C-alpha cells in the first residue's frame, strides 16, 4: 500500500512536470483527485484495510492528496504565467507604424499673430475695439490732422466710395471714434482690415491688416511709448533682438517715430532682406498730435497720449520668415498647415 502511494506520487510528479497546458493539467487533476481518481479511490477503499493500518495509511494518503493538490496549483500558476508570456510575445506590434490621427485645422497665420499682439496689449490694460472698414473721410483723414490738401494724403492711395466715404487706409480712425465716445484714461487696441490702391506684389496688397493702439491719460510720455514698444518687441520676437527707435513723420502724431528690430537673417550686418541696413521696420508710432486730441474734444494741456500702428502681414512675414505677402491670401493648404 505504501509502495503504491509512493508509486502514484512519483508518477504524478513526473506528469505534472511535463504538463504545459490547462486542459492536460485538468486531466491530471481528474486522474488523481477526481471522483474516480486514483487517490480518491485509495481514500474510498481505506475501509478495506485492517483498522490498525487505517490511521497511518489514511494520513499518508491524505498527505499525498494535499501534496498533489498543491503541485497541481503550482503547475497551474506556472502554466498561467507561461501562457501569459506566450500571449505577450504573440502580441508584439510595430510601434513605428503610423498612429490613428485626428486631423485638426489650423488658424490662419495672420490670426495667430493678431492673437499674440492682443495678448500682449490686453495684459497691459488695453481693451480690444473695432471700427468700420468703410469710413467717412473725416475719421480717416480730417480728424487725424490730415486735411484735404495735406501732402501726406499722397502717400496713401485711397479707394473712394463717394466724395466723403472711403475704404479706410489705416486703423487710426478708430482712435478718433473711441476718443469721441469716451473719457480718458483709456487704452485701446483696434485690429482690422485696411485698404490702399496698391497692385498686388510680394510686399503689397490692396487689402491688408493693421493694429492700432492708443493710450491717453495724464502725463504719458515718449519714454512710456518707447518702453511699451521695447517690451512688445521682446514679447513678440524674443529678448535677443536689438531694437531701434528713430524719428519719423505722421500727420496725427508729434513727435513721431518708427520702430525697428535687428534683422534676424544677417544679425544686423546688412543683407538683402533688410536692404543692407541691418534693421527691419516693424511699426510707426508717436505722441498723439494735440490737434487730434482737440478735435476729439480732449484738452492737450491736460492729457497726452501715444498711438502705435503696425501691419499684421509685415509682422507675420518677419516673425515666420515669409517672403511673399500673396501667400496669406492664396490660402494654400500646404501653407496653412505649417502654422
Amino acid at each position, binding site marked *: 500500500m505504501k509502495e503504491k502511494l509512493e508509486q502514484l506520487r512519483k508518477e504524478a510528479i513526473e506528469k505534472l512536470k511535463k504538463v504545459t497546458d490547462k486542459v492536460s493539467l485538468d486531466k491530471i487533476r481528474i486522474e488523481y483527485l477526481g471522483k474516480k481518481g486514483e487517490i480518491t479511490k485509495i481514500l474510498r477503499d481505506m475501509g478495506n484495510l485492517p483498522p490498525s493500518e487505517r490511521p497511518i495509511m489514511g494520513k499518508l494518503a491524505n498527505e499525498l492528496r494535499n501534496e498533489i493538490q498543491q503541485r497541481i496549483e503550482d503547475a497551474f500558476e506556472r502554466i498561467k504565467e507561461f501562457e501569459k508570456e506566450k500571449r505577450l510575445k504573440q502580441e508584439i506590434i510595430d510601434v513605428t507604424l503610423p498612429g490613428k490621427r485626428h486631423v485638426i485645422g489650423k488658424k490662419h497665420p495672420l490670426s495667430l499673430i493678431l492673437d499674440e499682439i492682443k495678448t500682449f496689449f490686453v495684459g497691459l490694460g488695453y481693451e480690444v475695439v473695432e471700427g468700420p472698414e468703410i469710413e467717412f473721410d473725416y475719421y480717416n483723414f480730417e480728424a487725424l490732422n490730415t486735411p484735404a490738401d495735406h501732402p501726406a494724403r499722397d502717400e496713401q492711395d485711397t479707394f473712394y466710395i463717394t466724395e466723403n466715404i472711403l475704404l479706410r487706409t489705416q486703423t487710426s480712425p478708430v482712435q478718433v471714434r473711441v476718443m469721441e465716445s469716451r473719457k480718458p484714461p483709456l487704452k485701446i487696441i483696434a485690429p482690422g482690415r485696411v485698404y490702399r490702391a496698391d497692385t498686388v506684389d510680394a510686399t503689397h496688397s*490692396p487689402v491688408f491688416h493693421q493694429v492700432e493702439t492708443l493710450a491717453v491719460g495724464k502725463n504719458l510720455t515718449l519714454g512710456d511709448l518707447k518702453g511699451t514698444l521695447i517690451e512688445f518687441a521682446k514679447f513678440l520676437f524674443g529678448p535677443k533682438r536689438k531694437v531701434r527707435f528713430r524719428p519719423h513723420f505722421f500727420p496725427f502724431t508729434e513727435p513721431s517715430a518708427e520702430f525697428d528690430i535687428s534683422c534676424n537673417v544677417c544679425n544686423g550686418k546688412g543683407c538683402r532682406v533688410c536692404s543692407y541696413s541691418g534693421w527691419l521696420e516693424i511699426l510707426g508710432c508717436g505722441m498723439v498730435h494735440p490737434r487730434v486730441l482737440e478735435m476729439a474734444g480732449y484738452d492737450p494741456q491736460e492729457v497726452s497720449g501715444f498711438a502705435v500702428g503696425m501691419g499684421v502681414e509685415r509682422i507675420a512675414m518677419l516673425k515666420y520668415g515669409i517672403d511673399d505677402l500673396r501667400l496669406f491670401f492664396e490660402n494654400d493648404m500646404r501653407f496653412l498647415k505649417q502654422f
Partner: protein
Amino acid sequence: MQVSYNWLNEYVDISDYDPKDLGEALTMSGSNVEHIKYLGEKMDNRIVTGKIKTKKSHPNADKLWIYEVDIKTDVLQIVSGAGNIEEGNIVPVALPGCCLPNGQKITEAEFRGEKSQGMMCSPRELELDLKIVPENQQHGILILPDDTPIGESFKEVMGFDDYVFEFEITSNRPDCLSIIGIARETAATLGRKMKYPMVNLPEGKGNARDMVGVQIKDEQLCPRYTARIVDNVKIGPSPLWLQNKLRSAGIRPINNIVDITNFVMLETGQPLHAFDYSCLKGRQIIVRRAQKNEKITTLDGKERVLDEDILVIADSEGPVGIAGVMGGLNSEITSETKTVLLESANFYHANIRETSKKLGLRTEASTRFEKGLDPELALEASNRFVQLVDELNAGEIVKGVIDVYPVKPKINKIKLRFKRANQLLGTDISPEEMIEMLERLEIKIVEKGDSYVIAEPPSFRNNDLTRETDLIEEIARLYGYDKIKPTLPTGETTAGKINYRDRIIDKTKYILNSCGLNEIITSSFTGPKAFETIKLKEDSYQRAVKIKNPLGEDQSLMRTTLIPHMLDIITYNLNKMIEKARFFEVGTIYIAKQLPLKDLPKEERILSIGMAGECDFYSLKGVVETLLESLRIRDYKFSPFEHPSFHPGRTALLKIKDEIAGVMGEIHPDVMENYDIAERVYIGEFKLEKIIDYTDLKYKYEPLPRYPAVNRDIAVLVKDEILADTVKDCIQQTAGEIIEEIKLFDVYKGKQIPVGYKSLAFSIKYRSHERTLTDEEVNQIHKKIIKTLENKLNAKLRM
C-alpha cells in the same frame, strides 16, 4: 532723394565721418537713410582716361581700327572694332592687367598682326547706369567731356569714387528734397557749421523788365513768380564737374542750360524752367487757370486737354507750360535758342498734386512742388542759376529780375515751455540745451523767458513748424531718441478686455479647427463676374457698394457674400492636388442701406464653411451641428431650401429660434462647371451675429441622472418625401419629456422596401428623473408612438 557724400561735403565738413556712421547719425536724427551705395563698385583704378592721338584702319582687317592713345605716361596702341571715336576724343582705357566690372581680364593681345595694349570701353562694358549716359553715347566707346584730364583713374575723374545716400524724405520735409536741405540737417545733427554756396550776382546789361511782363491771375495757386533773361546763350556740353554732380544724383547730363537748371534744382530744391524767349508771344507771361478744353502739347510730345482747375503759364496767345509740372513743346529750348527766359516760381502744392494726378504726369518738378516749397527759395534759385550761367560762360545775363510776390507768408511765432517739453518726452533737458538745439536748426529765438522761449522757424520750415509740439519733436530728435529712457506708464490704470463677441468668435474658430477646418482669409473685393459665376442675378450686385476708383472690374465691388471667395480657395487647392479641402473664414460683408451711399453701409460678420473631397452634405452639416452644440445653441432647425448657387435637392436653411441664420448645401453643378471643377463642393454661409446672439456659455450644473434609462429601437417605413425630422418631431411630441434622446441610426432603401419608400430606424432613450421606468410603462408609450406614426405619417412598423 539721392545725395552724394562728396557733394554733401562741400556744404558741411563730413570728411572725418565714415559714410556708414554718417548714415546712422542722420537716420537717428530723422533723415532716414534707406541705403548707401558706393558708385565705383567693381571699377578698377587701372581704367584710365586717354586721348586719341591717331586713328587708322587695320591693314589686315576691314572692321578693325588701330588707335594711338595718349595716357600721359605712355602712348598705347589699341586695336578696336569701334569706329565712333576720332582724334582728340577722351575715352576710358582699360590697361592690361586690369579687370572690367563683368570680371573680364584685360591682357596685351595681338589682332591680325597688330599689338593691342589695352581696351577702350563702352558704357555697357563699364556697367554704367544707362540713365546717366548721354543718349547719343549709349553705343560705341564712351566719349568724355573735353575738359577731362588724361592719364587719370576713370573712376576718380568721373566722380565714381563716391558714396550715394538714398534718403526717405517724409512729406513734412520738402526742404530736404535738396542737397542744401540735407546738408543743413547734417550740420544740425553733427553740430557743425553749414557752408551755403556763395552767390555773386553778375551785373548784366540791358533791362529784363523791358523785355517781359509777368502777371499772376491767381495768387492762391501761384504765390510767387520770378523771371530772368539770359541773352546770347551758347548751348553746349557742361564741364565735367557739373556732369559728375548730376550723375551722382542719377540725372543724365544734356546741355549746359538744362544741366544748370537741374543742378540748381538738386542743390536748392527749387525746380526751374527755361523757355525759349523768342517763342513767347506778346512778351508776356500770364499765370492763370486754363480754360475748359484748352490744349497744350507738353515737352514729352503728348497733347494734354486742360480744365479750369489746372494752372498754366501762358503768353498772350495761349499756354506755354503747365505750371509746376511740365513745359510746352512750343517754347522748348533747342540748339537754335538765342534768348532764355528762366522761370523760378512757387505754386500751391495741392493744386500741383491734383493736376499731376489728373494728367497722369509726374515729373521731378511736380514731385517737389506738390509737397509745398518755400516761396523765398524762388529768388535764391534764380540767382544761383544766373551766377552759374555766367561762370560757365553759357550766356549773357540781362540785368534785373521780374519778381511778382504779392503776399509774403507770415512767419510763425511759437511758444515753447521747457517744462512741457520734458514732460512730454520724459526727459530732463536743460533750457540752454533746448535753445542750442533749436538754433542749430536755424530756428530764431525772438523772446526768452525763465520758463519759455518764443521762436520763429526759418522760412523753409514755416509750414512744418507751427506749434509747440513741433518744436518739442525737433528737440527730441536732436537730443536723440536713443537717449530717451524707456519707461512704462504710471498713474491711473485701465482694465484689459476682450469683449464677449470677440471671445465667441475665437471659440468658434477653435471649434472649427478641432473639426479639422483650416482658417482662410480672403479679399473684401469682388466683381460682377463673381456674382454671375455663382448664378446670382444682376440686381444682387447692383445693390453692392461700388468703389469709384477700383484696381479692376473684378475688384470693383465690396463683397456681399463669401461664397465666390470660398469657391476660389477650394478650386485653387483642388488644382494643387489637395485631396481634402476643409476651410472656414470669418469675414465681413458690406450691405448698403441705400444707394447711392449716404451713410456708412452695414458691416456684417459672416462665417463661411467649405469642403470638398471625401465628404458629403452630412459632413458639412455635422460640423455645423458640432459648432452649434458646442456653443450650446439649442433651438436650431434645418429645412430644405432653394438658392440659385446650390443644388436644388441638397440645400438647407438654418434657423435658430425661427430666425434665419444661414444657408448651406452642395454647390450647384452649373456653378462648378463655371469653375471647371468635377469634385462636389459643399459650402455654408452663416450669420455670425445670430450665432453669437444665441450662444449660451452661462454654464450651469445639472444633477446626473439617478434612475436608469430604457432603450428601445424602432424602424418605420415612410414615403420618401417625409423628412426624418418630421418623424422625429412626431415621436418627441407623442411621448413628451420622458424621451431623453432620439437618435436616427439607419436609413435604408432597396431590397424589401417598396419603391418610393424608405426605412428609418431610430433609437429612443426613455428616462424619468423621479423613478425607475418599468417595462410595462415604456411598452405602452412605445405603442402609442407607433400608433401616432401610423396615423399621422402613414408609417408602417418594420419588424
